[in-house]
């Protein structure tokens, strides 16, 4: 069960995602990075169908870079969020050819990806956007997707305050992760935490309870 959540703190925003790559009952790997760095000051955590997740986030990342090349200045977080929503909304109703061979029928082919977009803009500060797979966009202080959201959102509702420091926010993230690990039936063992502030977007920490087995000696 994929878990992605995020929150805004004082002059920073962070996104947390689980790192299990799952196919039916099999866990392919447990150190999959589901939070993409869109540019120096943006993070996009995504959950949903694995192919769509990787392809769509990469598509957004490359388009954000293209804008930067063409115009000389980077997109703001709000603009990137609206671009992402636009692409999801277009794909929602646009018809593509059905996969079955020999048929020329068309049906809509939406992306099944839920996104938490965090960014830091000079002059505006940190911001967090909730974008679900049917292209609902909303600017929020805390967001979560997946079954884990029932636990992380509840924990955040209880403990979140505006303008938390990094330490306080990480404490809250750890509380959420503990809750997910103990209460979700097929809880993912490992999580990655990424943070974005005025100095840029970067990986902050991993929370691993199961390390991938290295080659057997």
């Amino acid at each position, binding site marked *: 069960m994929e878990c992605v959540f995020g929150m805004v703190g004082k002059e920073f925003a962070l996104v947390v995602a689980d790192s299990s790559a799952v196919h039916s009952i099999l866990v392919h790997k447990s150190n999959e990075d589901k939070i993409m760095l869109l540019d120096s000051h943006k993070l996009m955590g995504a959950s949903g169908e694995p192919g769509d997740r990787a392809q769509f986030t990469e598509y957004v990342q490359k388009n954000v870079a293209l804008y930067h090349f063409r115009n000389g200045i980077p997109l703001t977080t709000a603009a990137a969020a609206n671009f992402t*929503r636009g692409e999801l*909304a277009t794909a*929602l*109703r646009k018809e593509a050819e059905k996969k079955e061979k020999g048929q020329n029928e068309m049906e809509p082919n939406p992306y099944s990806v839920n996104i938490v977009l965090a960014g830091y803009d000079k002059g505006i500060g940190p911001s967090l956007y*909730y974008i*679900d797979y*049917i*292209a*609902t*966009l*909303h600017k*929020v202080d805390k*967001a979560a997707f997946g079954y884990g*959201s*029932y636990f992380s*959102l509840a924990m955040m509702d209880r403990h979140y305050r505006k303008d938390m420091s990094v330490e306080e926010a990480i404490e809250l993230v750890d509380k959420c992760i503990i809750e997910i690990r103990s209460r979700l039936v097929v809880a993912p063992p490992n999580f990655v935490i990424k943070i974005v502030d005025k100095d840029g977007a970067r990986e902050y920490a991993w929370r691993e309870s199961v390390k991938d087995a290295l080659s057997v000696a």
Partner: protein
Amino acid sequence: MSIFEYNGSALVAMVGKNCFAIASDRRLGVQLQTVATDFQRIFKIHDKLFVGLSGLATDAQTLYQRLVFRHKLYQLREERDMKPETFASLVSAILYEKRFGPYFCQPVIAGLGDEDKPFICTMDSIGAKELAKDFVVAGTASESLYGACESMFKPDMEPEELFETISQALLSSVDRDCLSGWGGHVYVVTPTEVTERILKGRMD
């Protein structure tokens, strides 16, 4: 669950004496889960025209962007703002365009027309207009809203009384609907000013 009830919404517009009021709830949900409590459902098209969009949030956002686009083009060509009646016809046409793949939205349009005469209307998701002289409602709480408005409404109310009436009607209706609520957002529009107020109701 119906696609119209996926996000949850409540909208109401009422006519007063040379003024109108339009109000919405503030909840954005995904079925049983509440995602946000400050979601904007009512949008200003111009100083004397407001549109509220209930139903699926993604379609409400897409439709709003299309309507703003069309109105801005109209303003450039005609060098004036759209009349509410014209705008309602525009919304109706845009919705019917998608007759066999509709936007899952029910708009509520409220404005001051010629000589500042208040105009309100609602339509279904494929553009069937419903003009009314007193009040119009939309959203998951619409049945409760019909009852509340019918009993509380009086014709020719002044802006302050209209605000009280629409607020009470909205809050009491959303309290009976689990998918809408978390406060209210009320706009009262007269020929000279627009007052925006946030209501605090049962936050659940």
